């Protein structure tokens, strides 16, 4: 059981910098997800924790011990790879027992650990099969089993679900969460899928271009994104981001964008605003609701737009609407589905309006 400390870590490949002085503290038993677009350095960071890549500058410590110069096998970690990395010429049992044999554990102990992991993961029937005879989900479980039998201080997962179909991915997410609850080990998990990050993490670390953009609980990063990048990256469908300005209106401010309505700005943002300031207005699709009947929303919290694309999801309907030069994603209730081309009224839930400074893209709300 262990904590992981990353202090001022820098990494370049040739002359291309990939990680810029990164600091991160991961607590004992914490499930931390590194998330970001391709090339943001999240996998490189994970491989540095594993010892598969050297650290150029800075320190990585596992349970207080600096491991920069410690071989991967001596770091007391286990890693699950994106493509599973199972040895194709060995049976499931041998795959799972491989590390234990390399560590010269006694045979009865090896058998006990492998069978225990196989029982937890539902692999007992498959122990004599080879990876080639298994489905994607089964292979993924073997990869997890192989990591589990070593009883490591830290589990590292490198995009483990990205090769699975949507249904299986969701099932495996649950398995991984259960695994964490069962073994209570520190987990560092890398993914580019923000849904995975939201559902699994105790804390999410959002990365871009080798830097951390925000660290927080799933709800924190969803409800209070610190900048435009995080606001656009976290949440599905993505937050609407519109280029606008704010203007003083009595004691408060109102905001608008070309061709858009003039909306009152939430009071919490007021201290940071100046008259005429250039902003990016952010509002999530779930706070842009299609209105079909009478409503108690003030008239200036509403707009009318032309429906461009309709995506029914059953319980609700995603509506891509156009007004002026802008596009806006909103949500309908799923009972009445408008047709493309139709005019539709939308109401804004302004309690959830986000404003970002257009100059530095930092949050103002």
């Amino acid at each position, binding site marked *: 059981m262990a904590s992981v400390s990353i202090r001022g870590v820098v990494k370049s490949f040739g002359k291309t910098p990939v990680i810029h002085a990164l600091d991160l503290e991961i607590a004992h038993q914490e499930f931390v997800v590194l998330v970001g677009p391709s090339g943001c350095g999240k996998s490189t960071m994970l491989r540095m924790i594993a010892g598969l890549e050297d650290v150029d500058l800075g320190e990585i410590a596992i349970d207080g011990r600096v491991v920069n110069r410690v071989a991967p096998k001596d770091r007391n970690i286990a890693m699950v790879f994106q493509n599973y990395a199972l040895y194709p*010429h060995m049976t499931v049992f041998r795959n799972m027992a491989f590390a234990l044999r*390399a560590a010269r554990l006694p045979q009865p102990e090896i058998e006990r650990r492998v069978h225990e992991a196989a029982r937890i993961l539902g692999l007992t029937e498959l122990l004599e099969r080879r990876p080639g005879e298994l489905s994607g989900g089964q292979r993924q479980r073997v990869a997890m089993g192989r990591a589990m039998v070593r009883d490591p201080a830290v589990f590292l997962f490198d995009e483990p679900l990205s090769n699975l179909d949507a249904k299986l991915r969701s099932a495996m997410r649950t398995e991984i969460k259960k695994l964490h609850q069962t073994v209570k080990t520190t987990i560092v998990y890398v993914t580019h899928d923000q849904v995975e990050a939201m559902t699994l993490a105790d804390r999410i670390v959002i990365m871009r271009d080798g830097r951390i953009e925000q660290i927080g609980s799933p709800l924190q990063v969803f409800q209070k994104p610190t900048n435009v990048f995080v606001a656009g990256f976290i949440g599905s469908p993505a937050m609407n981001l519109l280029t606008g300005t704010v203007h003083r209106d009595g004691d408060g401010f109102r905001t608008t964008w070309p061709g858009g309505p003039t909306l009152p700005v939430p009071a919490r943002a007021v201290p940071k605003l100046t008259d005429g300031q250039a902003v990016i207005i952010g509002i999530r699709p779930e706070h842009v609701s299609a209105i079909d009947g009478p409503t108690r929303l003030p008239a200036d919290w509403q707009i009318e737009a032309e429906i461009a694309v309709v995506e029914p999801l059953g319980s609700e309907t995603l509506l891509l609407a156009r007004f002026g030069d802008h596009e806006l994603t909103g949500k309908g209730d799923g009972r009445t589905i408008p047709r493309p081309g139709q005019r539709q009224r939308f109401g804004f839930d302004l309690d959830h309006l986000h404003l970002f400074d257009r100059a530095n893209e930092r949050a103002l709300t």
Partner: protein
Amino acid sequence: MTISLAWADRVAPGRIVAWTVLFLGGVVMILPFVYMLATSFKDNSEVYDLSLLPRHPTLENYVELFEKTAFARWFLSSLLTSTVTTISVLFFDSLVGYTLAKFDFRGRGLVFVAILSTLMIPTEMLVIPWYVMAKTMGWLDTYWGIVFPGLMTGFGTFLMRQFFDSVPDDLIAAARLDGLNEFQIWWQVAMPLVTPALSALAIFVFLGNWTAFLWPLIATSSKSLYTIPVGLAAFSGEYQTQWEMVMTGASVATLPVLFVFILFQKYIVNGVMLAGLKG
């Protein structure tokens, strides 16, 4: 309906032409082999008769081959030198190939190009430096003298590098995390994944050495060290060649190769296809 379609498909003109060409190709390939085998059962008077069936079949040549010549010894020499060379090539070429494919070090490209460039040099040119080297070191007329030039090959290194290149890096990373050292990773993880290439390389190297003539001829002078091709050449005299003995020796020499091929047919065909080489 299905049957008639299948039949129409089978007798399609394209297929008939293909079969004919393949059949003729097969005959051309196999005829010298059959002629060799037939001649080994003929007596001296029949050797220049082109018939494929001996008029008076005899085993006399086989008896003479084993009783009056050192053929058995040559056979063992060939077996020893070919086996040692093959094992050595499989070991060293795959070790170097793996290193070139999976380790990033300064000068890696240069080393690879240098190894590749050795493929451009014909054996005939190499024989002189080999000879000088063998003479200087006192290796002439020894088994070591026969095998040393072939213990590592540029071709094998190239082939193995290409195959190791396709072994996923994550598999090697996983083995590293599992606690294996680099040599164990090569032996326990990477090698089992390139068995088709190893089989192909093994058969090429074994055959190449089994049929090698020029270097063993130069490197040896004692009859007891002759390999089969050198020994068989000794049946050709200044005035006449004992063709029936040459053919008998060649027939026996084919046996182990045939045996190896039948035993490992699946791997060899796979390996050759994977290596994209002509058999």
